[in-house]
C-alpha cells in the first residue's frame, strides 16, 4: 500500500463537489483564516496603529493640531526635546521610580507568595491572608491616589499614628519616595499572584531530591525555587518595567509632578506639554521617545517569550 498524504477536505469542495487546484485551495484557506482574524485586526489597526502613526506624524510637524498651517520640520522637535533639561530630569525620575518599584514588587511579591505557599499555615488562614494581600490590586488608580493623599496629608491618619507632622507628599525631599511607596503598595499583588501560581507548579520531588542531597532551606530556595521561577520572573519584571514607566494617573493625582519638579516623570512631562502648553508637536515627540524606550524593553520581552517556545 502506498503512503498517501492526507487530504483535508475543503469546504468548497464539499459544497460544490468540484475539486479545486492545490494553489486555489491554499489561497482560499489562507483567506479564510485571515477573514476570521479580520475583526480583531481591523480594531487593532484603527485603535492602535493609526493613532500611533498619527502621533509620529505630529512629532515631525510644527504647530500640530492647533496651527492652521502645519510645516514639516523633520527632527527639529526631537532636538528641542532632547536638549530640554526638564526631559532628562523626568527621565531620571522615571528610571528611579520604575526600578525601585519593580525590585520592591519582586521582593515583596515573592516573599508573600512563599508565605502563602508554605505548609506551615492551614487552609483557612491561607485563604484569609490571600484575600487580604490581594486587596491593593482591586482598587483603581484614582481611588488609590485619593485614599493615600488623604492618609498622608499633614493632618491625616498616618501622621496621627506616628505622632508627627511630616509632609509626606509635599516635601521636595520625600515626595518621590512616597509616590514610589504608594506604587509599590498598589502593584505587588500582581507579582504575588503570578509567583504563587508558579510556586505551586514546581514539582515537589525536586525539593525532596534537594533535601536528600543535604540542601538547607536557603540552598533549596536558590537552587530549586528561583531557577524554576526564572521564566515567570523575567516576564513579570519586563512587563512591570513597561507598565510602571507609563504610570501617569497615580503621580498626577497625588503630586501633579511637584513639589517643584521632584516627581516629574515622562508621562506627566508629556501631559503638561500637550494639555497645559498646547504644544502638541513637542508632546508627540516626547511620546515617541517614550515609545522607543518601551520598545527596547518590549523587544527583550518578545525574544524571551519566543525562546521559551
Amino acid at each position, binding site marked *: 500500500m502506498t503512503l498517501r498524504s492526507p487530504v483535508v477536505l475543503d469546504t468548497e469542495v464539499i459544497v460544490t463537489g468540484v475539486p479545486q487546484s492545490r494553489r486555489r485551495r491554499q489561497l482560499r484557506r489562507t483567506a479564510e483564516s485571515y477573514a476570521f482574524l479580520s475583526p480583531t485586526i481591523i480594531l487593532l489597526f484603527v485603535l492602535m496603529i493609526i493613532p500611533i502613526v498619527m502621533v509620529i506624524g505630529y512629532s515631525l510637524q510644527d504647530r500640530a493640531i492647533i496651527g492652521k498651517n502645519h510645516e514639516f520640520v523633520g527632527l527639529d522637535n526631537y532636538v528641542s526635546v532632547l536638549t530640554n533639561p526638564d526631559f532628562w530630569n523626568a527621565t531620571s525620575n522615571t528610571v528611579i521610580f520604575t526600578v525601585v518599584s519593580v525590585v520592591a514588587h519582586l521582593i515583596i511579591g515573592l516573599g508573600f507568595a512563599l508565605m502563602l505557599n508554605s505548609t506551615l499555615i492551614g487552609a483557612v488562614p491561607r485563604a484569609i491572608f490571600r484575600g487580604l494581600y490581594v486587596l491593593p490590586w482591586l482598587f483603581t488608580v484614582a481611588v488609590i491616589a485619593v485614599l493615600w493623599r488623604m492618609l498622608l496629608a499633614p493632618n491625616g491618619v498616618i501622621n496621627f499614628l506616628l505622632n508627627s507632622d511630616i509632609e509626606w*507628599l509635599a516635601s521636595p525631599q520625600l515626595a518621590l519616595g512616597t509616590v514610589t511607596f504608594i506604587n509599590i503598595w498598589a502593584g505587588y499583588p500582581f507579582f504575588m499572584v503570578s509567583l504563587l501560581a508558579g510556586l505551586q507548579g514546581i514539582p515537589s520531588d525536586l525539593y525532596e531530591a534537594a533535601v536528600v542531597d543535604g540542601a538547607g532551606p536557603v540552598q533549596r530556595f536558590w537552587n530549586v525555587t528561583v531557577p524554576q521561577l526564572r521564566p515567570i520572573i523575567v516576564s513579570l519584571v519586563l512587563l512591570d518595567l513597561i507598565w510602571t514607566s507609563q504610570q501617569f494617573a497615580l503621580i498626577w493625582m497625588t503630586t501633579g509632578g511637584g513639589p*517643584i519638579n521632584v516627581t516629574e516623570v515622562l508621562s506627566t512631562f508629556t501631559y503638561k506639554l500637550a494639555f497645559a502648553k498646547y504644544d502638541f508637536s513637542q508632546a508627540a515627540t516626547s511620546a515617541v521617545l517614550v515609545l522607543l524606550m518601551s520598545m527596547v524593553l518590549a523587544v527583550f520581552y518578545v525574544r524571551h517569550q519566543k525562546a521559551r517556545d
Partner: protein
Amino acid sequence: MTRAGQGHSKALKIAGAMTAVASVLMVAGCSGGSSDGASGDAGGDVTIEFAQWWEPELPDGEFRALIDTFEDENPGITVDLVSGPYASTKEQLFAGAASGTMPDVVGLDGAWVNDFASQGVIANLTDLMADADYDDSQLASQIQVDGGTYMIPVVNFVYPMFTNDDLLSQAGVSAPPSTRTEFADAAQKVSALGGDVSGWVLPLSLEAPNGVQNDVMSWVWASGGSMLKDGQPDLTNDDVASAADYIQGLWDDGVIASGSFTMKEQDKVEEFTNGRVGMMIDSLAHINLIRETNPDLKFSISAIPADDGYDGERGIPYASWGIGVAENSEHKDAAFKLVQFLMSEDTNSELSTMANAFPGNTESVPGFVEDDELFKTAFDIYKAGYPANEFTGLPVAEELMRQFGEQFQSALDGQQSMEDALKKAQDSWVAEF
C-alpha cells in the same frame, strides 16, 4: 519556503502596504473637516448648540427653564444645551476647535480665551456687538485679545478673605485684619494657639495651579498692583516683589499650614472647614458648602488685606462663567441674541441668584444679597473694588501659573532667593508671549 509561509509573508506585505496607505491618508486629511455646528430648516427656524458646564452646577431644571424663556421670546430659535463637567467641557471645546466643529455658543473660562482666539476659533464679539447695535456699557468687564472682545463674563465668583471668628477671638484678635501687618500679626497669634492650628493656608499644587492666581497674585491686586505692563509680563516690579517677599516672610514665620506644595483648593477649604486654619482666601461659591459641612463654624467675609497705607480701590480676584461665540457657527446672529439675553439685567440677576455669584451686568442685583449677611458683605466688597484677574486673556494661562508656582516653591523651600525666582519666572513667561 512552504506555501503557508509564502501566504504568510504575502499577507504581511499586503498588511504593510495597507498601513502605509492608510497612514498617508490619515496624516494628509487630518486637518480637514467642515463645520457642522448647527442646522437650519427651510422655514427660517434655527437650532443652535450651547456647550457649558453651568447646568450641572445649578439646581435641577432651573437653567433649562431660563433657556426656555429665551426660546419663547425668540420664536424660531431653538437652543440645544450640551452640558458636562468643567474639565470635560474644556477638553471638548479644544477637540471641537481642532476639528472645526465647535458648538455655536460656548461657555468659556478666562484662562482659555487667548489660546482659542489665537487659533481663530472664537468670533470677535466686538464685531458682533457692532452688527447688532449692542450697547455694551452695562457689561462689568470684557475679556479682550489684541483689542477685540472674545469673551464676556456672565457671572463672577469672587475670592474674598474668610476668617474663622472663633480662632481669631481665642487668639486675641478682635476683627479681621485689613492691612498686611495686621494679617501677619493675626496669623502669628493664631498659629501660637498650638495643636494643628495655623494662621493661613496656601495651596500651591502644580497640578491645578490656580493657587498662584487666587492666593499669591491676589495680594498684588488687592493693593492695586499689577503683574503685567502693557500686556507683557512684569514680574520683577515692586508690587509683585513686595507681595512675594511678604509671603516669604509668612512662610519663614511658620504661620502657613503644612502641605502647601501639593495642596489643592479643595484641601484648603477642608482645612478651613475643620477649624484648623484661621484665615483663607477662597471663592464665595464655597459658602454654602462650608455651612453644610460644618454648621457650627463661625466665619466672616472681608476684603483681602492691602499694603499698609494703601487706600485706593482693591482688586478682588474672580473666576467667571464666560460666554463666547464660535467662529465656525453658521448662525452667529442667533448665537449673539442668546448672549444678549443672558447679559440682560433681569436674566443676569436671576442667573446670579441661581449660581450664588455676582452678575456680569453692572445694573443687576442677585436676590441673595437681600437675605444673607455674608453675601451682602461680599457684594459690598465687590462693588467697592474692582474684579481683578490678570490671567484672563493671557496665552497658556494655566502653564504661566505653573511656571511661576515652580519658581515660587523653590524660593520658599530656600533653594533660591525670591528675587532670582521672580527673574526666572519672568524669563519663562516672556518665552510664552
